[in-house]
C-alpha cells in the first residue's frame, strides 16, 4: 500500500514542519531526512488500523543507518503473527521468531553467533549487523522477563524494545503486570465487586535501569517522532545491551477510535502517565516536561477500559491513580536531580 505510506510520510513531514516552527524540534533530528529512509517494515502486514505498535516499530527501525543490516527478533504476539504469516514476511531485514518468552535469549544467540563468526572470519558478508528484539508487555514484563534480564546482564550488543500495550492483546485483552490499575480487561473485568485490575503496573523501565545498562529509555511515538527515533538511534549505536520501553496503545484493548491513536499517545505523555526519559550510564534525563499539570483523567477518559472510573461514586479510583502518577513523577524528578 504505497499510497498509505506516502500519506503517512506527508502527514509526519507536515507535522514536523509545524513543530519546527514552534521550535520543538532539536537540530540533530530532521524528520524530512528520517522519513526518506527506506521502509524496513513493509506495508501490507496485518496489524489493526489504529494500533500503536507499527509506528513504534517503524520509528525504531528508522534509527538504523541505511547501510547496516539488522537481525530482528520478536516474541510471539500481535507483532509477530501479523508480520510473518507464511509465506509472507513484512520484514526487509532478517527476522526470527521462536516463542513467546524468549526474544531476549533468541536474539542473544544470534548476536553470539555474529561475534564468533566475526572473530573466525566466517561471516557471509562484512556488513555491520545490529540486533533488535521486540516484545509486547506480556512477552517482556511477564513471561519473557527472565530471558530479557539474562540477555541484558550478559551484555550482548543488542537492543530490546518493548511495545507496551498494557495487556495480552493477541489472546484477547487479558491483564499483564503492565496493565494499569482499574483497567477493565477480560481477566480483570470491572464487575460489581471488583473494579477492574487491582494492582498498579510494574515499572519495567526502572527495573531495567537498575540493571545498570549503558542505555535505557522510555518513549512514545508522539509529535514528530523525534523522541522515539532519536532514542532508537542512540540505543542501536551504543555498544552493549540497551532497553527501550515504548507505549503502544491498542484500539481494541483500550477502546478508542483508530484515528485517536496519536492523541492517546500525546495525552499519556502530557498527563505524566508515561514520562519520556532516558538513563545513560546511570544518569537520568527527563526528555519532556509537560508545561501544564494535566490530570490523568484526561488520558483515561479517552479509553473504554476506564469507562467505569467516570461513574458517579467512583471518583476515588481516579484520585488513587492520580496519586500514584504524581508519586512516580516525583520519584523520576528526584532521580533526574531536578528536585
Amino acid at each position, binding site marked *: 500500500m504505497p499510497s498509505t505510506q506516502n500519506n503517512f510520510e506527508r502527514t509526519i513531514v507536515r507535522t514536523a514542519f509545524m513543530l519546527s516552527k514552534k521550535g520543538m524540534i532539536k537540530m540533530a533530528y530532521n524528520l524530512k531526512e528520517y522519513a526518506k529512509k527506506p521502509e524496513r517494515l513493509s506495508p501490507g502486514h496485518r496489524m489493526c488500523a489504529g494500533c500503536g505498535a507499527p509506528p513504534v516499530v517503524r520509528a525504531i527501525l528508522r534509527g538504523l543507518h541505511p547501510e547496516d*543490516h539488522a*537481525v530482528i*527478533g520478536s516474541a510471539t504476539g500481535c507483532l*509477530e*503473527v501479523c508480520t*510473518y*504469516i*507464511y*509465506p509472507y*514476511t513484512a*520484514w*526487509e*531485514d*532478517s*527476522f*526470527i*521468531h*521462536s*516463542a513467546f*518468552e*524468549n526474544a*531476549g*535469549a*533468541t*536474539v*542473544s*544467540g*544470534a*548476536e*553470539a*553467533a*555474529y*561475534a*564468533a*563468526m566475526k*572473530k*573466525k572470519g*566466517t*561471516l*557471509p*558478508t562484512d*556488513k555491520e*549487523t545490529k540486533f533488535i528484539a521486540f516484545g509486547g508487555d506480556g512477552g517482556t514484563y511477564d513471561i519473557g522477563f*527472565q*530471558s530479557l*534480564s*539474562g*540477555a541484558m*546482564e*550478559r551484555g550482548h550488543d543488542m537492543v530490546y524494545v518493548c511495545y507496551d500495550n498494557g495487556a495480552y492483546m493477541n489472546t484477547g485483552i487479558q491483564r499483564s503486570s503492565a496493565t494499569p490499575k482499574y483497567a477493565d480487561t477480560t481477566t480483570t473485568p470491572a464487575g460489581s465487586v471488583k473494579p477492574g485490575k487491582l494492582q498498579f503496573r510494574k515499572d519495567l523501565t526502572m527495573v531495567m535501569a537498575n540493571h545498570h545498562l549503558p542505555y535505557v529509555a522510555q518513549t512514545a511515538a508522539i509529535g514528530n517522532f523525534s523522541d522515539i527515533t532519536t532514542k532508537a538511534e542512540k540505543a542501536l549505536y551504543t555498544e552493549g545491551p540497551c532497553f527501550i520501553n515504548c507505549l503502544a496503545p491498542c484500539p481494541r484493548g483500550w477502546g478508542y477510535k483508530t484515528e485517536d491513536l496519536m492523541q492517546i499517545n500525546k495525552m499519556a505523555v502530557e498527563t505524566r502517565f508515561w514520562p519520556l526519559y532516558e538513563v545513560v550510564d546511570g544518569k537520568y534525563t527527563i526528555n519532556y516536561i509537560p508545561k501544564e499539570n494535566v490530570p490523568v483523567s484526561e488520558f483515561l477518559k479517552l479509553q473504554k477500559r476506564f469507562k467505569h472510573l467516570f461513574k458517579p461514586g467512583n471518583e476515588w479510583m481516579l484520585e488513587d491513580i492520580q496519586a500514584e502518577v504524581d508519586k512516580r513523577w516525583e520519584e523520576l524528578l528526584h532521580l533526574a536531580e531536578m528536585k
Partner: protein
Amino acid sequence: MSIRERLSGNEAVATAMKQINPDVVAAFPITPSTEIPQYFSSFVANGQVDTEFVAVESEHSAMSACIGASAAGARAMTATSSNGMSLMWEMLYIAASSRLPIVMNLVNRTVSGPLNIHNDHSDSMGARDSGWIQIYSETNQEAYDNFLMANRIAEHKDVRLPVMICQDGFITSHAIENIELVEDDKVKAFVGEYKAPWALLDANHPVSVGPLDLQAHHYEHKRQQAEAMKNAKKVIQEVAAEFEKMTGRKYDLIEKYMMDDAEIAIVVLNSTAGTAKYVVNQLREKGIKAGLVKPRVFRPFPVDEIADALKNCKAVAVMDKADSLNAASGPLFAEVTSAMFVKGVTSPKVINYIYGLGGRDVKADDIETVYNRLSDIVKTGNVGEVYNYLSVRE
C-alpha cells in the same frame, strides 16, 4: 595415530566439542551434565577454542540461544540433563521444526519428581516425539564417537534436524574409562566447515525464520520434517561408514550381540547393554543361546533392523529405563513390538521390564533373572505378566 586417554563421559564429550570448535555453546548447569559446560568454558578461557560461550540463565534460554545462533548460520551446541531438558521442552520442537542442526549432549537423568539426580531415560524418552534425532551411547568411547558424528548427520542437506547424543548420567558421564581419541586435524577434516544454506547473518539474502504457519502450509511442513527423519537413517549409516574408515570403529543403527543363533534376547539402551553383554557371555558358557539387541539410534526408529534382528528369537524382553505410565509398557517396548508386528515378526513371545528408575543399580544378577524368565517362557510357552518392574520392592 589415535590418542589413548582415560576420560569420563563428560570429559570425552567436552573434548569432542573442543575438537569441533563450534561457533556458539549456550548452556546452563544441571547435574550430571554440568561438567561439560565447565570443561568447555575452560577451553574458552584458555583460548583453545574460538567459540562464544553463552552462560544463559536457564535451559529454556540455552535452547533459545542455540536456535538464534543456528538460525544466524552458526554451529551451535549445548548439553543438559533431566529437568533442564524439560525446561527446554517447548524449544526442542521449535528447533526441530525450524530445521536447525543443533547438537546436544543429553546426559540422561530421571525427570522430577520425586527429585533425584541419577540416571534413567525419562528425559530423552519424554522428548521422543520432539523431532530430534536420538543416538544412545553405551560407553564413554561411544559418547565421544557419536558426538563427532552428530554434526555431519544434523547438517546433511537431506536431514537438517537437531541431534541429541545420549549417555547415562554418572554411569557413563562420571566414570573414567580408557578411550581412543581421534587427532584434532582428523576431526576437523571429518566434521568439516559448516555453511548454512540460509542465515540471518547473510545481509545480502535476509531471511525470516519462525513464521505463523497456518492450515495452508503447516501440514506440508510437518510432512517435510517427517521425510527428513526418514532420510536420516541412511545418512546416519553413511556417516558411520566414513567414521569406521577413519577410526576402525564400526557403528550402525542397532548393535547385535550374539544374535545369529539367539533364542532369547534382551533389547536395551545405553550403558546397561554393557552389563547385559557380560551376562550373555556367562549364559553362552552354560550353552544358553542368549543374545542382545542394543538400539544405537532411537530416532529415527530402526523398524526393519530391529524386527529382522529379533525374528528368529523364541522370547524377547524389552527393557525400559523409563515408564510410559500407561498401565501397559515402557516406550521402547511399545516401539519394538510395533516394529515386530508391522514386519510380520509375531512368533517371539515378548515381555517388558521397567528397570533402574532414578538410578537404581542394575546388576548382572538382575539381568540374569530376565534371561531366566525368558528361558522359562520358552520352556512353558506361558508368557505371564507382560509389564514388569525388575528387582523392585513391592
